[in-house]
């Protein structure tokens, strides 16, 4: 049995409200998102509107790895284990301040533990690729406890002078302690990745420069998520987590496949979308309150046509 023993999430304290967006002048607030969390200094955003992301990289109150660490410590505490019992860290970030080492290794450094660590990521479907690997690893080749993390700080890549990205994106991180030798409170029953469509335009995160998010990008990702769910027959009555951008789209999408929103719309509205870290943060925030037997379906898609599904059951 592959299960989650501890779950952690972290959002920075800085808030970009709709009033702040209006003050910044370049980004029109989306109708249903009220605040986004940012790890950047608000006075930096107000004075420079992140015109130069390189300057933004020096304006963090909390770095992406600070967020990963907070989430990891929460997960480790919930799992009831010591840091030294972690046998492996699998990490990811889509907004690295260092292209080398990886996020997993930066976290291991912050935990001050000699742990085998490397990154496994696949953009917006990262949680699915991490869970897919761990689910399908042989028990004897998997450490007793594995820490699975991701962090994203896209506000450092947003141009607050124009475009729509600033309306949707916020910063955050997730962490899970998983095991195949100890039962946790959430069992991972299925995880897969597959191609669901040809690549679509809409969203580019370059190594340098600003995020490019097209006007139609939210609608494209909803269509791709629907493609993912259409290929999965066992979603009825589950709670849905997905990586859509528009809060108003979540309930109809869930209903279409016989599911209910697990809290995606609420978290989008309050925290914004933190890219690769978003679905895991939503799950980590709510997982412990689920009733026994409740099923969760995480449906993820990216603009390259890759889809991912993770299905869990509260034990």
């Amino acid at each position, binding site marked *: 049995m592959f299960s989650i023993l501890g779950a952690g999430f972290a959002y920075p304290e800085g808030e970009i409200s709709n009033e702040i967006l209006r003050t910044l002048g370049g980004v029109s607030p989306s109708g249903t998102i009220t605040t986004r969390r940012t790890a950047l200094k608000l006075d930096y955003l107000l004075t420079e509107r992140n015109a130069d992301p*390189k300057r933004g*990289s020096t304006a963090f109150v909390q770095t992406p790895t600070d967020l990963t660490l907070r989430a990891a410590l929460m997960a480790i505490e919930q799992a009831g284990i010591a840091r030294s019992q972690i046998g492996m*860290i699998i990490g990811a970030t*889509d*907004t*690295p*301040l*260092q*292209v*080398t*080492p*990886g996020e*997993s*290794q*930066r*976290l*291991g*450094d912050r*935990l*001050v*533990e*000699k*742990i*085998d*660590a*490397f*990154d*496994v*990521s*696949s*953009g*917006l479907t990262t949680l699915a*690729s991490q869970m897919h*690997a761990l689910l*399908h*690893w*042989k028990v*004897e*080749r*998997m450490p007793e406890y594995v820490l699975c993390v991701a962090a994203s700080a896209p506000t450092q890549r947003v141009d607050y002078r124009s475009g729509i990205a600033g309306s949707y994106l916020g910063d955050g991180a997730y962490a899970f302690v998983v095991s195949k030798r100890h039962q946790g409170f959430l069992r991972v029953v299925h995880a897969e*990745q*597959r*191609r669901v469509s040809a*690549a679509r335009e809409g*969203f*580019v*995160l*370059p*190594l*340098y420069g600003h995020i490019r998010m097209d006007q139609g990008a939210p609608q494209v990702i909803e269509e791709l998520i629907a493609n993912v769910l259409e290929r999965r027959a066992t979603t009825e009555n589950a709670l849905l987590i997905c990586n859509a951008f528009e809060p108003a789209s979540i309930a109809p999408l869930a209903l279409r496949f016989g599911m209910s929103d697990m809290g995606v719309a609420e978290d989008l509205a309050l925290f914004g979308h933190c890219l690769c870290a978003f679905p895991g943060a939503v799950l980590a925030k709510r997982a412990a309150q689920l009733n026994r037997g409740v099923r969760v379906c995480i449906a993820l898609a*990216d*603009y*390259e046509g*890759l889809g991912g599904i993770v299905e869990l059951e509260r034990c």
Partner: protein
Amino acid sequence: MRALAVLSNWNVVEGGTVLHILGIGFSHPTNVIDNPFIEQLNVGTNEAWILDKIGIRERRTSLPLSYISETRNQDAEQALAHAENTPHQLGVNAATMAMQRAGISPHQIGMVICNCCTPKEIYPSEAQRLADALGITAPVVDVFTACPAFALHCDYLDRFDESALPDYILALSTATLTQHVNYNDRSDGAIWGDGAAAWVVAPRARGRLKVLETYFASDPTRSQAVVVDTYGHFHQDGRAVRDFSVRQTVRLVKRLEEKFNLDWKRDIFIGHQANATMLEQICNNRDIPPQNHWHNVSYIGNQAGAGAPAVLGMHWDMMKPGQRIAVAVVGAGLSWGSVLLEVVS
């Protein structure tokens, strides 16, 4: 189910999944940074020092030499705009060679895993861009640790239950680290080269190389010893990293020698392609004769994760059946690993 013998982190493949490598490809840019070019940058080094400390004569770079001379690459963002090759282009070339050698077509690839420490974009990822360019429609994942990528990828795949792996997996490592070098630094400019390597792995088909054992480990408490800043340059604690590299590689090799009774009159050693002087030191320590030490660093430079597999690819036609090849790699993270291969056909 046949039993597996597991020794701490090392997987000795006695039963269970047996991976084979069916083809290996490599690709390097054509621009050459030789030692006289570095000398004329006037950064306080000369060929004699470089050959003594690093043992590298030439390196391949994606950057125009005129750009390096004029700017010393002080702004790494500008390097991307001026580069004549991208990690993606090099990766496509390497993957094409690997698949040709494996005798398979792109539509047969069921998974792509990629290691790239110098991506042009985060979304889409290098793995996705490579897959698109190659016409591969399989899922893609970035599995990343910079330099020891070959060991990590083999070990990562070896952990899977065989039934969960597709028939053919394309693994790649590609990087253009010269785009992150400060050419006012007298040693960094002499170390790095650019390159890509790709290898086709199969859990059920038989290929030229059988994977006998895989191993990967890391000590992230030392992760800041080797850094490439996103908005800046490569930097490292040179002395500490050199000591770590030699010591750790020797440990990896010794362990393989003892467990598998390696015979350096017949078997081959490939180390991390970072520094030819260090590799010579390791070979002297283990009594590995020059003809059984395969390398390319002295004329390509440090190609990060592509180095060791590129060496394998360059010696593809020189392998002899029954030969065992010990690949021991170290690098950023700090991480390290080994793969023991047997030439089977």
